[in-house]
């Protein structure tokens, strides 16, 4: 938006932008160069800024050494599961809140809304306990009511009822607790509220059932919003750290972002930074590609969230 001619300021603008882009890109550029070097080259001080020819060797070594195949697969399942789960759960939730009138509607809305204030970081231990035994609360009620003795009396011998169902080290455990999201439900609610009333009236007049209206009219209209959320939630899911760290102990269930730590050279090891950087590049690639190629949806989704 050039209002008047300001050649000096324009020059400064371009200069600052180029410098800014370089500054933002430098850590990645440096990582890419390191990933192409050999151990000898990468531990030279200062490291050469000319790319070497070891890229594929390093990528391969990072892949096998860090068991990235398994971990990327886990990350992919987790990220897609969270994305899909969140979108389905919030679409139905928002549909219920906007298009129906029922007694507990406000209560449901408030309950969903308040989860905004409870990120996993503030309820680490109890959520872990919950996942470790999903029916823990029921067991408590069971014990409190003394139902064991009643059941034993009926059966005629001693019966211990143990409600035990663990989500630890499972895909369900990685995905399920992260699929309820107030932000997604909000976004769909805001969007549904902007849809003209006439559509719903017309559908009702034609005798369409609520679910027909949902599948045939609401869902196609929400395509853009869904696309935007797919990008955001996939990146969110892929980059999860604390929750997978808590709930997985089996190395076969670790996600790539967490597993990457094992490639970091410790002070006693040879400084394998070229391998660590090659691994980092592999793990960051999927979400970066998603963001770059779906940039339009992504920006739209991000900015919509603010409203």
């Amino acid at each position, binding site marked *: 938006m050039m209002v008047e001619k300001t050649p000096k*300021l324009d020059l400064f603008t371009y200069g600052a932008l180029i410098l800014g882009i370089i500054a933002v890109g430098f850590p990645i550029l440096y990582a890419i160069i390191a990933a192409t070097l050999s151990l000898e080259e990468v531990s030279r001080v200062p490291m050469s800024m000319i790319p070497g020819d070891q890229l594929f060797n390093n990528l391969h070594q990072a892949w096998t050494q860090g068991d990235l195949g398994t971990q990327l697969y886990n990350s992919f399942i987790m990220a897609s599961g969270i994305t899909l789960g969140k979108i389905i759960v919030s679409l139905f939730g928002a549909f219920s809140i906007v298009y129906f009138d029922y007694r507990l509607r406000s209560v449901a809305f408030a309950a969903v809304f308040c989860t905004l204030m409870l990120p996993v970081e503030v309820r680490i231990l*109890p959520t872990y306990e919950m996942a470790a035994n999903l029916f823990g609360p029921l067991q408590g009620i069971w014990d409190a009511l003394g139902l064991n003795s009643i059941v034993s009396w009926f059966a005629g011998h001693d019966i211990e009822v143990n409600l035990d169902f663990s989500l630890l080290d499972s895909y369900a455990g990685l995905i399920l607790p992260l699929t309820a999201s107030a932000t997604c439900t909000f976004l769909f609610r805001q969007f549904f509220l902007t849809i003209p009333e006439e559509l719903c009236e017309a559908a009702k007049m034609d005798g369409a059932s609520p679910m027909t209206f949902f599948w045939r009219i609401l869902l196609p209209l929400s395509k853009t919003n869904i696309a935007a959320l797919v990008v955001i939630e996939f990146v969110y899911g892929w980059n999860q750290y604390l929750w997978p760290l808590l709930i997985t102990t089996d190395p076969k269930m670790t996600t790539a972002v967490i597993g990457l730590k094992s490639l970091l050279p410790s002070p006693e090891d040879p400084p394998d930074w070229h391998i660590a950087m090659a691994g980092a590049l592999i793990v960051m690639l999927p979400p970066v590609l998603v963001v770059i190629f779906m940039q339009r949806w992504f920006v739209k989704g991000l900015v919509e969230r603010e409203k």
Partner: protein
Amino acid sequence: MIKKRSYFKSRSLPYLLILPQVLITLTFFYWPAVQGVVSSFQLSDPFGLYTKFVWFDNFIALFKDPLYLKSIATTLFFSGSVAFVSITFGLFLATMANRVLKVTTLTRTLLIWPYAIAPAISGILWLFLLHPSYGVVAIFIEDFLGIDWNPLLQSSHAMLMIVMASAWKNVSYNFVFFLAGLQAIPHSLIEAAAMDGASPFRRFWTITFPLLSPTMFFVTVMTIIFSFFESFGIIHAVTQGGPGGSTNILVYKVYQDGFIGLNLGSSSAQSVVLMSLIILITFLQFKYVERKVQYTG
């Protein structure tokens, strides 16, 4: 609450539709949160063999603990620095990008992608850049500034490292919002001011900046939430709270005391403190959003 003029009538369907969300929310949000609050008033041994109700003892112990007070100070300094660096830089880049309308899409592409990088990976990249023996930035600091640089041993250097890793990751997020905010400002306002003879700098400070204040508020809140909670990955992957607890921010301390140290009462009390904090932030945010309507309307 707003609702549609035209809606469906069904006795069971709406409950069925909202059921998945309510079930997950109750199971993984509310029940654990209540449990957390309850155990913050209890004292128990690591094996769960006995528990005792101790009222506010855990909280009193917490706020008497110099390590916890230090962690609060560390967190405040950390998030303040991250907010300052990433907001200043993000706003600057957005202002520049907004001036050159033609290349905005390309510029945006080149500036946006650190958003997609996990905090932990950002931490690893910066650990390499600032590594005392191999990092190129570290060598620059040692040679040109003459500082004996070592973020693995020096508290302030470690802090600088995690601030850079967090701020770098956040710049692109802030950039996207500032650019959107700038593009939403009516061009006629800028033109009118230019006609009145206001220089580009004056226009920025008297028109653009005040009109950007809702975005500024939102971005600040999001950055603070990020540095309070999501920076966990950076700390865990890179410093583990060290050296000497100098990067032990509150969320990492909750994890360390509760999950590693198995000090349930104290960890729960810390969680409750964090919970109160985020409730406060959310309330402030929504109070402000109400006002924001007048700006954009």
